[in-house]
């Protein structure tokens, strides 16, 4: 397979319809496209923004490696990963994975695999800024994210 993942790390938002169409338009072999969008939550209504710091060279290398692995494991027709950095407001997009395949289970697995690895292997860190100006706080890593990887082993 000579499918190359499309990996972008950027400040700007993305358009999901457009990203799906880049992977599927004009191709007869794509029967299933799964997208995952990660959105900045704010249940308490107290968040001003999430600030995403990242390690640029490593983030790109690492996500490309994980995405190439997903293509091989699930025989995907294509995969796109867009991870934003900088300040992101509640309700805004943080990350997008688009996984395309002839069949639905492969498309689901590709996107699920990518997100599980992204959570614990991609060098991004989130800091919370509060509306009331209280001290900024780095988000803690979750044990559940570590264990989510195990199901792919």
């Amino acid at each position, binding site marked *: 397979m000579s499918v190359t993942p499309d990996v972008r790390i950027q400040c700007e938002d993305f358009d999901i319809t457009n990203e799906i169409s880049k992977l599927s338009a004009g191709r007869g072999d794509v029967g299933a496209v799964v997208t995952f969008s990660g959105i900045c939550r704010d249940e308490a209504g107290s968040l001003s923004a999430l600030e*995403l*710091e*990242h390690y640029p060279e*490593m983030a790109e290398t690492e996500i490309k490696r994980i995405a190439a692995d997903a293509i091989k494991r699930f025989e995907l027709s294509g995969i796109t990963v867009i991870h934003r950095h900088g300040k992101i407001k509640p309700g805004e997009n943080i990350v997008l994975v688009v996984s395309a395949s002839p069949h639905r289970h492969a498309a689901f697995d590709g996107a699920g695999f990518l997100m599980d690895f992204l959570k614990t*292997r991609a060098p991004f*860190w989130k800091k919370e800024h509060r509306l009331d100006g209280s001290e900024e706080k780095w988000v803690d890593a979750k044990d559940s994210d570590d264990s989510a990887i195990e199901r792919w082993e």
Partner: protein
Amino acid sequence: MKLVYFAWLRERVGVGEEEVELPATVATVSDLFDWLNSRGENYQEALKHPDVVRVALDQQHEGDRNASIAGAREIALFPPMTGG
């Protein structure tokens, strides 16, 4: 040798990156931690829970504290990742 720090490790060390001349005795990741601890309180504060510190050698994850750092051009220290 370039050292880079991210998130609260960067804040505690006080710089995002620095060029260092490592003594010849610093051969492994573990040695690097010891050497950094000898450089001042800011490093001690950054490395005070060494188990949660993640390491990348030339942008590759390195989970083994006994791994050799010989030949690495850039070593990154950072907390567990919270992307996605």
